[in-house]
């Protein structure tokens, strides 16, 4: 068990609108998200003295965001990276505070992932020269995330008999959750047939197996448990964290099989070991859904079911609201909008507070109906422990366990 378990908290969360055309700079969006998170925590600009963000040359960095809000920093770090960053930065924020470098850290991600630098790799990204390690795959028409991951998904189907229909249930579940979320880009519930009947993008991925490129900014505020007790919201305690854990040969992970194994295989003992719990103790998961398959692969690798049985697990009803362990209750990247992982941590923070922003009339006061029919509630009753499974690529992942 970690000596830092329960000593740090997430005290504030915030996000902009999820859109496909923000007409705003990443600076403007970041400022809005950070400001909302500070207000959510009941803090002031003077209370925040640390800032971290992640990006890939597609965003505005902390030195240009903090001053807009009058924040003077004792620590900041701009990190290159995508989906595996969220949980990793939470852990780094704890470390920075523990080291005495600062007291309270705002972590943000701001991107015009649809209207400016498209996450899928089209537009400006596709025009860049191909060099270095990219020469091993990009000249063969393998450039986007879906194209990068499809070999892993296909091999999983071969190794374990996983079917398109099974993983389609991830989209079905997340669409059900998004229908309870006023912020979600796609609120329409879909069926398995809708998913497997949608057009192919890169086999074995259909259009509806893929997430939504989105414009947005998101923010999470981390501070010590001691300070958290004076914040506005019920503290959410960090039990364990694993950051950017990789498979061998991160440069070319296909060299080191089985290729249907993902990084959670290596991360699970770190994060569960710190938290002192196991998968059965987790009430809500946030398994990164860049694609339907990524949610399934991580859930099985972290031990929520046996390796190879992820298809059966995600199609059993367990991951839906009303099921034993709902996943991505805001709709995730497949339906709510793509945030490089931040929104899934934000959602779990709200679940643990009992303050999910659904359509329940008393949601703001924590009054929920637990009626999961369309356009109603998405609060999980008495959610005590959540776990986020962050993904960047098959060989790279992060994880975060929180409790109320």
């Amino acid at each position, binding site marked *: 068990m970690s000596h830092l378990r329960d000593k740090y908290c997430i005290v504030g969360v915030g996000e902009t609108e999820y859109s496909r055309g923000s007409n705003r700079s990443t600076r403007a969006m970041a400022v809005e998200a950070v400001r909302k998170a500070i207000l959510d925590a009941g803090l002031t600009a003077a209370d925040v003295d640390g800032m971290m963000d992640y990006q890939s040359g597609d965003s505005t960095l902390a030195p240009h965001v903090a001053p807009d809000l009058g924040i003077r920093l004792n620590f900041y770090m701009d990190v290159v990276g995508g989906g595996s960053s969220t949980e990793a930065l939470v852990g780094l924020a704890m470390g920075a505070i523990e080291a005495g470098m600062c007291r309270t850290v705002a972590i943000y991600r701001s991107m015009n992932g649809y209207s400016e630098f498209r996450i899928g790799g089209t537009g400006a990204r596709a025009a860049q020269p191909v060099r*270095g390690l990219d020469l*091993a795959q990009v*000249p*063969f028409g393998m450039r986007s995330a879906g194209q990068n991951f499809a070999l*892993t998904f*296909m091999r999983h189907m*071969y190794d374990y008999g996983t079917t398109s229909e099974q993983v389609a249930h991830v989209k079905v579940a997340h669409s059900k959750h998004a229908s309870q979320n006023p912020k979600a880009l796609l609120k329409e519930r879909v069926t398995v047939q809708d998913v497997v009947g949608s057009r192919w993008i*890169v086999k074995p991925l259909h259009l509806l197996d893929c997430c939504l490129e989105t414009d947005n900014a998101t923010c999470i505020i981390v501070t010590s448990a001691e300070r958290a007790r004076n914040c506005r919201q019920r503290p959410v305690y960090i039990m364990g964290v694993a950051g950017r854990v990789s498979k061998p040969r991160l440069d070319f992970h*296909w*060299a080191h099989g089985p290729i249907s194994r993902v990084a959670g295989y290596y991360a699970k003992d770190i994060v569960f070991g710190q938290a002192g719990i196991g998968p059965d103790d987790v009430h809500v998961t946030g398994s990164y859904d860049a694609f339907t398959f990524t949610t399934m692969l991580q859930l099985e690798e972290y031990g929520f079911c046996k390796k190879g049985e992820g298809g059966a697990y995600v199609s059993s009803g367990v991951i839906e609201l009303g099921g034993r362990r709902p996943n991505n209750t805001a709709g995730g990247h497949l339906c709510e909008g793509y945030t490089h992982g931040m929104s899934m941590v934000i959602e779990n923070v709200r679940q643990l507070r009992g303050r999910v922003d659904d359509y329940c009339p008393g949601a703001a006061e924590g009054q929920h109906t637990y009626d999961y029919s369309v356009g109603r509630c998405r609060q999980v009753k008495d959610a005590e422990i959540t776990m986020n499974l962050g993904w960047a690529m098959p060989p790279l992942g992060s994880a975060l366990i929180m409790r109320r």
Partner: protein
Amino acid sequence: MPQPVSYRGMTLLVPDNDSEWAEYFAHARAHTLMMRACTACGLMRYPPTHACPWCMDLGWRWQEVSGRGTIHSYEIVAHAIQPGFKELTPYPVVLVELDEQRGRPTPDEALRIIANLVKDDLSPEAEARVAIGARVKVVFQDLADHFALPQFTLGGEPPVGRVWRLGG
């Protein structure tokens, strides 16, 4: 510095200081598939890198491989991201496990390489003929005097182990 190679709207850049790739693609232009092999432990590696990932030794030599292998996984790109590939859709991308060094140094490791599965005229192979377990052999797609891409064709040999394709 060698001229950048233009291919399907992409600029493929191999600077002079990237000797690993420059020599690899130059060998491919001579129609030989070469792996970097460690002079200390003897294991080959791909992509060509500067140190041995198993023993960290810096000594290396080029070692030719047969270019024969088995499809370990594949995908069919229906929606191309790169504009120059749109006219090729649907095209297969294959992960080929080479015959040399299979299951070494640990059971799940192998020399695996990404390429397109192509017909003899280098156009994309038909989807119905792509399968995990199918045997393949290397061919070379010449793009410049100093540069060729290793690609793979169906080898005409009987498959190894279970043959499987999506929806098949």
